């Protein structure tokens, strides 16, 4: 198993009535052909967060987003391009991680208007396996 540590950056998210701003991580991951896939998981106690959505983009392309995964909080998601025997597959190359939180703000039983900042410390880890 190859660990790809995304760093210990806490995720402070702004929760609104739609997706949060997409967030880009600085690091570039070079992944060898044969690294079968990447597993991502995230947990949070933030009640407003319903999903975390992560993606990989190729770092040499200015536009291509290669794969995304949406993870219900506390659960696990998998990246991958193609599936062979049920296993996601990522070709050799270099990638960046990107992510965003998806949530809904409920104030006094009603949907709120605008952004609301919460301090959210979730674990974001991903591992090639």
């Amino acid at each position: 198993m190859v660990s790809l540590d995304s760093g210990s950056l806490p995720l402070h998210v702004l929760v609104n009535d739609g997706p949060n701003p997409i967030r880009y991580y600085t690091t570039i991951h070079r992944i060898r052909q044969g690294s079968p896939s990447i597993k991502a998981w995230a947990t949070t106690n933030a009640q407003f967060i319903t999903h975390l959505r992560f993606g990989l983009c190729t770092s040499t392309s200015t536009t291509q987003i290669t794969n995304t995964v949406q993870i219900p909080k506390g659960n696990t998601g998998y990246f991958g391009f193609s599936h062979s025997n049920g296993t996601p597959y990522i070709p050799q190359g270099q990638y960046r991680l990107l992510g965003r939180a998806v949530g809904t703000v409920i104030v006094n039983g009603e949907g709120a208007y605008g952004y609301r900042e919460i301090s959210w410390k979730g674990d974001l880890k991903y591992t090639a396996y």
Partner: protein
Amino acid sequence: MSGLTHGCILSERHNPVVGTNLQSVAAVEREYLDATANFPFFLPPGFTFAPRAPLEDHEPNAIYEPRYGVSLALSQWTTAVEQAILTAGESARTEYARDMARQYLEATRTRFFSEIVLDRDDITGDFLRAVIERGDFSELRDWLSASA
């Protein structure tokens, strides 16, 4: 409409970086220009950095980890120097290619590089050592074609 009572919240809508250590598009662009002006490694012949940060995303509210602008500069450089090594190798300038490969390998050992490029399988070291030690460009060629 509760716009007046949510005035403070509305102002945050226009500045989603408030309260985080992430940074805005404008900050990344400034960081990029500074990185390209003070880049610590050799530049391959004919290479110049893009005049503006080549951001992947065009959402105005996108936010970035610190040093993202540096990472964009480094990413351009790695692609350029890898291509320059391969071009030199394919035009029978093997010693010149080896010299660039040695400098590149040296750069990968710096904190500046290794904090941004995470290469746990040492793919970069493998294709550079193949060039330096054996004059073999096939691994580098494969890498460039895979990550194009």
